[in-house]
């Protein structure tokens, strides 16, 4: 019965599917990006690769395979050497024992051959960390679904049935095991499936796992597919242990707020230990025998490590397995005990009562302030606090900020020359720059003459080799200037042409910042619009999460009837809700594009906002003459408008489909095509909201007319949604 209830729980089921799909999509997106970056690099050709010390995967594999036996030997003999050194001779020291143990452990690998093959599928999945965190989220959702029946009063019914308590506890352990098994199986099936499809290499599955450099320290004698199986099983066991642990902690206190807080504190502490401790620390045992590692096993299965326990070396992996077993046993025992002993409607414990009392007091103070909010403020409060919108916002802003690239740029060679010229001569074409260029060209010519003289003098033997080298060095130091002048001349040529053809007096300015903002050539050529699209997609997802409850919640909790009977509960409340949506969009826009501007400003500041936008050569065909600043403003306005129309679509979805179905509908209509488009399904661009949102892309790739049509189509779509929502809310339902 318990199984049925969980599976029938549509919310849980939908969330799981969503999690699985997101993970697979994120994985594929990451891999596609990696592959295309690799391709971009390899297009420079073999020579360039070699020059930069880069190797193709195959070559690297060959080299590694050849060196592997040597590597093993080195470990074994180095051990012997080290034991020869005096400090290690103390037989009861940790170092000595550790070396002995390492030697013994690696001995089993002697004679193992690393083969040349393609192991990228395994490597990429193993290093895809997101999967671990998604699994954890799944576990938490599963455990939460246990507590649903408390709210619905089912618990009392359950509790009253004979044998219901112990049975229930056991059934729940079973649900956790089964649920995790199914989820992990499907998840890794998806991941490995797409990995082998992307990278190939299924034929090398019989090679020893040490054939891949990532696993050279794995002391298990297994081949790739065996390793794969072990990997999945380990993750499954870890996920099971973790979900049991979460269940136990949540059972601990009656107040869910308290127990969730407790869980967060415990996990945060463990996370700090896991990431903060160095491998040399005395407490290193805490680093690997760590609950956080149950969420994210990481390299525990393939990296060889021992830690010091009373000067005995303990294998980290062993310790990890022990921890896992202990966690599983303890959690099961404690949870079962709590479940079978606790009564559904008991009073809270003393300590809990005290903490809860304190919280209540704080709560009361907040609530007193709250009742003075206007209706508008109340709507905002509902979004941010009642529906945990503030959490979404924090996570989202954290994601955005963590992606900001703030390294400072060092200008070398031509770049430095150009920087100087830009700082001096940016602005309208006033002839000063041309004069400067003419002067510099003269200097350059002078240098060239001198160099040629030196060359001929050297050939006739008038100057020594040393002097010749000097001259050549001096000359080559001017090559940066030459490059700079060339680039300036090109820009001047463009300015002249645009003046002739369209009568626009373009400015001389540095376009790098604008390029990052408005073209697919960001920091390097051919980077594409990935970053803009990612930001856009994130914005849309946050928008959905924040706004999906604005209309649907009043309906599900039965407030709608009351509101609609109040004089201002229809049109006025509707407009208030629309205003809230506007505010939300404005905020999302400000954060998203404010951070984008901030990042660009740090890397390559945009200047000359008053210059006509056609001063930028990639904007040559833009039909309207306007200042770059105005264009910037226009693009941001389009961002806002498109987001606002997206918000209307979210409203329409949640008004016509109730609860979680509405969210699902919004995701399917708004996020799904956008994600597909990002994954390279080009036909999706016609139905993806990302298209008008990343306005500059459609402008660059399809021209002005297309871009305007796209934006207008979005406006029409949004207006239709708006009218539908208005009709639904302000008029009575059928």
């Amino acid at each position, binding site marked *: 019965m318990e199984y049925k209830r969980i599976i029938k729980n549509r919310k849980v089921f939908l969330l799981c599917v969503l999690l699985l799909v997101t993970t697979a999509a994120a994985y594929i997106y990451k891999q596609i990006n990696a592959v295309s970056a690799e391709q971009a690099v390899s297009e420079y050709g073999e020579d360039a690769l070699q020059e930069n010390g880069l190797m193709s995967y195959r070559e690297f594999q060959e080299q590694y395979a050849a060196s592997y036996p040597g590597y093993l030997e080195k470990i074994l003999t180095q051990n012997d050497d080290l034991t020869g050194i005096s400090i290690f001779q103390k037989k009861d020291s940790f170092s000595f024992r550790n070396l002995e143990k390492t030697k013994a452990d690696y001995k089993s690998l002697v004679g193992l051959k690393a083969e040349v093959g393609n192991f990228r599928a395994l490597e990429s999945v193993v290093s895809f960390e997101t999967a671990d965190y998604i699994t954890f989220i799944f576990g938490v959702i599963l455990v939460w679904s246990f507590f649903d029946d408390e709210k619905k009063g089912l618990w009392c019914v359950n509790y009253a049935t004979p044998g219901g308590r112990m049975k229930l506890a056991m059934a729940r352990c079973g649900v956790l095991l089964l649920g995790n098994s199914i989820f992990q199986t499907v998840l890794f099936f998806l991941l490995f499936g797409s990995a082998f499809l992307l990278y190939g290499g299924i034929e090398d599955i019989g090679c020893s796992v040490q054939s891949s450099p990532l696993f050279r320290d794995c002391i298990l004698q297994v081949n790739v597919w065996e390793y794969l199986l072990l990997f999945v099983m380990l993750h499954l066991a870890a996920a099971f242990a973790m979900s049991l642990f979460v269940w136990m902690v949540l059972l601990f206190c009656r107040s869910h707020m308290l127990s969730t807080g407790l869980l967060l504190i415990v996990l945060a502490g463990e996370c700090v230990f896991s990431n903060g401790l160095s491998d040399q620390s005395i407490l290193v045992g805490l680093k690997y025998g760590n609950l956080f590692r149950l969420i994210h096993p990481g390299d525990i299965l393939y990296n060889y490590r021992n830690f010091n326990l009373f000067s005995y070396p303990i294998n980290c992996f062993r310790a990890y397995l022990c921890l896992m077993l202990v966690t599983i046993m303890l959690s099961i025992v404690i949870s079962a005990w709590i479940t079978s002993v606790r009564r559904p409607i008991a009073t809270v414990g003393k300590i809990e009562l005290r903490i809860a009392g304190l919280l209540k007091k704080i709560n009361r103070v907040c609530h007193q302030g709250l009742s003075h909010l*206007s209706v508008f403020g109340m709507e905002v409060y509902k979004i941010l606090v009642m529906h945990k919108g503030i959490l979404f916002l924090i996570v989202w802003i954290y994601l955005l900020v963590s992606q900001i690239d703030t390294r400072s740029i060092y200008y070398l060679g031509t770049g430095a020359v150009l920087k100087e010229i830009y700082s001096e001569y940016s602005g309208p074409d006033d002839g000063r720059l041309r004069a400067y260029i003419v002067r510099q060209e003269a200097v350059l010519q002078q240098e060239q003459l001198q160099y040629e003289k030196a060359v001929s003098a050297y050939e006739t033997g008038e100057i020594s080799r040393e002097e010749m080298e000097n001259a050549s060095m001096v000359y080559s130091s001017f090559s940066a200037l030459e490059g700079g002048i060339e680039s300036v001349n090109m820009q001047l040529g463009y300015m002249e042409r645009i003046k002739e053809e369209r009568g626009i007096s373009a400015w001389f300015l540095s376009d790098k910042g604008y390029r990052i903002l408005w073209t697919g050539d960001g920091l390097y050529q051919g980077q594409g619009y990935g970053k803009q699209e990612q930001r856009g997609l994130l914005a849309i997802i946050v928008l959905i999460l924040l706004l999906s409850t604005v209309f649907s919640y009043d309906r599900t909790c039965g407030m709608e009837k009351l509101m609609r009977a109040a004089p201002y509960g229809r049109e006025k409340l509707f407009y208030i809700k629309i205003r809230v949506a506007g505010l939300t969009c404005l905020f999302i826009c400000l954060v998203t594009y404010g951070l984008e501007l901030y990042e660009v400003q740090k890397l390559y500041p945009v200047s000359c906002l008053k210059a006509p936008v056609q001063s930028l050569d990639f904007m040559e065909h833009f039909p309207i003459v306007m200042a770059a600043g105005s264009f910037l403003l226009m693009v941001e306005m389009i961002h806002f408008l498109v987001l606002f129309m997206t918000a209307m679509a979210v409203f329409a979805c949640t008004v016509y489909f109730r609860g979680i179905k509405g969210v699902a509908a919004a995701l399917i209509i708004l996020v799904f095509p956008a994600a597909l488009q990002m994954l390279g399904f080009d036909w999706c661009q016609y139905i993806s909201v990302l298209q008008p949102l990343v306005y500059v892309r459609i402008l660059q790739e399809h021209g002005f007319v297309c871009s305007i049509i796209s934006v207008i189509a979005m406006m029409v779509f949004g207006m239709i949604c708006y009218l539908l929502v208005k009709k639904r809310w302000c008029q009575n339902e059928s």
Partner: protein
Amino acid sequence: MKLEIKGLSKKYGDFQALKALNVEFTEGIYGILGPNGAGKSTFMNLLTDNLKRTAGEICLDGKEILSLGKEYRAKLGYMPQQQGFYEQFSAMEFLRYIGKLKGLKGRKLNGQIEELLTKVNLYEIRHSPMSSLSGGMRQRVLLAQALLGKPEIVIMDEPTAGLDPKERINIRNIVAEISKDKIVFIATHVVSDIECIASKVLLLKKGELIRMESPAGLIASVRGKAGEIPCTKEELQKLQEKYVTGNTIQRQEGLFFRIVGDDLPPEANVIWNNLTLEDVYMYYLEQS
């Protein structure tokens, strides 16, 4: 003030929940009696325009309420049947929120809220979150909410569901007290809720208005239609099988089985006095 209902009907798909209702209301308290599924809530939802009607008109002083819109709703106080709440709000916040939706502000709003909270005996716990209130307390918050803004038309759907006897009486008194110059509708299937306060009672059955009359008139109409059979506990079961709608009464003198109907069996003592609305309810609504 006159509320006219002309040919009002409502269909859910093929199911006729309300059949062509024609009735007029002036100031006073109207009790709407009917068994489960009679269409009481449907009628109230039509009155508040929460539900789209299939046919008919509702006019306030000759003007259709749909075209009156906000103006009509400004005169409305509505207490829905199911308890719709924001669980995290306190009673105070909830009332404020609704008050603002009703266009009340500042001191006027605060004054009314305090007055109403005191009236429904909730002033002490006005800051506790709604989720910690008992069912009856929530019901009273809902009542207070409906009375905010001094509405002229008050629509209450089972206002006393889940209340203890004392609170029932309290609410009845409140309703009686505020009903001056107002049209008050109380839908219920508990006769005692409206017994002494209703100026008219509407009997609703399967979407049809069977009768609308003053309580006294209704009681008079069932004179001679009720009877009691003295019985023992053993006989009771047989009687209950025979007369499905009968009611058992325990008196000092022993057990009585009270039945209503046009043809009473000879063994029953026909009752002429002390008839109640309960008998009216049984006679009109429970008889098949």
